[in-house]
């Protein structure tokens, strides 16, 4: 697969857009015409569909270079978006090893890793990185291992310490989040940082999810999809910057919905880390405008039905209750009432 890295922005003039290939491989999250919470976890292994976002451990796509540029801007404005409690340094190294080994294996044209004992040599061609360092020696890297490797990897990451019958959010980098604050949630345990999510607690979703996550073992990662909606292809929809992007929610019109409203899907995976026994949690955001979504007929029909019927509490929690009418009206034009096939994939043309 050849990759042409796009030169685009996720703020200001918002020049982001998806190529037709990127639209086809977009991880549409709904496998049926309705949405409710589920612990919808599956093994993180290739599906066999060539080119899908699930084929590699850490997917690299045409937005890679531009996303990393946006991340660097976010970190420059707000260094608190990347934090690691002192005891999580070892987990940071585990993550660095995992990402470097995976990418060098899956994209040998783009990345290479050579080791001479604990002296490592890492090359990242798209970002023009060529670094030599000593594994486990932070003095030989320009910054901590977590920050170093995630400045070169798409998606947010949290590293969770496993102790006292729970998982603890003790490190992370969060620049593409759907409205939660790493600085505030750092140090919380599983049920605490999920506390604001409506409905799910009563359903026992988090009890089951925690039990499952705590039993994940090294060598067997898992994944799931989560979703929300964002006005404009803004990756940094942080609570910190809410006064800046909040007004955009109130500025949508029927003429601009298609172009400006984006379905934002998180491909989340779960990895047991070897030396620290911590759990790594990558949260990789994919954006697709409504007008691109509806170019896939099955997705247009299904998205309409999901948003039309979703409970109000969820619409409020996901931040689009205000615009629900507008969105549903726009999508209605693309729903002819035909049945949709089960599963998330587009129907073959």
């Amino acid at each position, binding site marked *: 697969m050849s990759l042409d890295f796009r030169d685009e922005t996720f703020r200001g003039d918002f020049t982001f857009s998806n190529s037709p290939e990127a639209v086809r491989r977009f991880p549409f999250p709904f496998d049926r015409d309705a949405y409710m919470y589920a612990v919808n976890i599956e093994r993180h292994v290739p599906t066999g569909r060539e080119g899908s976002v699930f084929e590699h451990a850490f997917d690299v796509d045409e937005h890679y270079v531009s996303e990393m540029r946006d991340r660097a801007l976010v970190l420059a404005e707000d260094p608190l978006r990347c934090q690691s409690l002192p005891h999580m340094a070892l987990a940071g190294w585990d993550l660095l090893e995992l990402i470097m080994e995976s990418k060098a294996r899956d994209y040998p044209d783009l990345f290479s890793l050579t080791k001479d004992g604990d002296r490592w040599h890492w090359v990242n061609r798209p970002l023009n990185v060529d670094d030599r360092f000593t594994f486990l020696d932070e003095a030989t890297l320009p910054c901590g291992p977590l920050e170093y490797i995630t400045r070169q990897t798409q998606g947010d990451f949290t590293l969770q310490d496993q102790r006292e019958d729970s998982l603890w959010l003790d490190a992370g980098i969060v620049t593409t989040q759907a409205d939660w604050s790493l600085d505030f*949630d750092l140090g*919380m345990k599983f*049920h605490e*940082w999920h506390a604001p999510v409506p409905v799910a607690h009563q359903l026992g979703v988090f009890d089951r999810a925690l039990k499952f996550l705590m039993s994940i073992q090294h060598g067997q990662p898992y994944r799931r999809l989560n979703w929300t909606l964002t006005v404009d292809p803004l990756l940094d929809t942080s609570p*910190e*910057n*809410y006064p800046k992007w909040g007004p955009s929610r109130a500025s949508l019109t029927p003429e601009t919905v298609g172009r400006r409203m984006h379905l934002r899907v998180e491909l989340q995976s779960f990895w047991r880390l070897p030396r620290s026994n911590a759990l790594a949690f990558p949260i990789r955001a994919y954006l697709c405008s409504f007008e691109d979504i509806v170019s896939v007929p099955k997705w247009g029909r299904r998205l309409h039905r999901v948003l039309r019927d979703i409970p109000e509490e969820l619409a409020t929690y996901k931040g689009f209750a205000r615009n629900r009418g507008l969105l549903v009206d726009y999508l209605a034009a693309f729903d002819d009432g035909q049945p949709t096939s089960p599963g998330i994939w587009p129907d073959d043309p």
Partner: protein
Amino acid sequence: MEPILSRPRYGKLAPAKGRAHLAMADGEGAGALLDLVAQAPDRAGFLAALHVIYVPGPGGLDRGEEVSRLGAALCHRAPSLAATLPRLRKVLADAHMGTQVYLAGSEGLIGQALREAMEAGLPFSAVQTEQRGSLARRVQCVHCKGVTEEVVTDPFRCSHCGLHLFVRDHYSRRLAAFQGVNIDAEEPGQVPLPVVRFA
């Protein structure tokens, strides 16, 4: 409605097994200290191993006299929490496993003292806490990161950056504060009248 899971829960102080006891309170928390000592099966023994630190509560309520008369082996009255933090840190740094910690009074005192105990290596689940008196909150503005002390209304103005913030029940032990979020972000200028909620 059930309080959200990230909101701290408080109990009632009761003497626990240990070789040393460290108790800290502000304002009406003095009452919890008195009740704590009254429950000790071996009052003299408990007092001989007790170190008390007391500061006035939000609004200045000071029951320090009663606390001094308890007869604890060590009793220190300080003018404010901020003034006494270095002492607290040193006491915790010198403490051994088997030290029991008790905190009572406002959420602000409890949260900040609890944070010091955690920094010193005590798990927060091992620290006893009892909320008494003022419900005024410490609130961190998620936008500028400044903490506003003794917040009683919702919404309120951040004392650092001036944004109007609504007060969430989402709480951080690490910051010892609740979260404040801009209330008029989506429609600037639309700010509801403040209501007293945390008196």
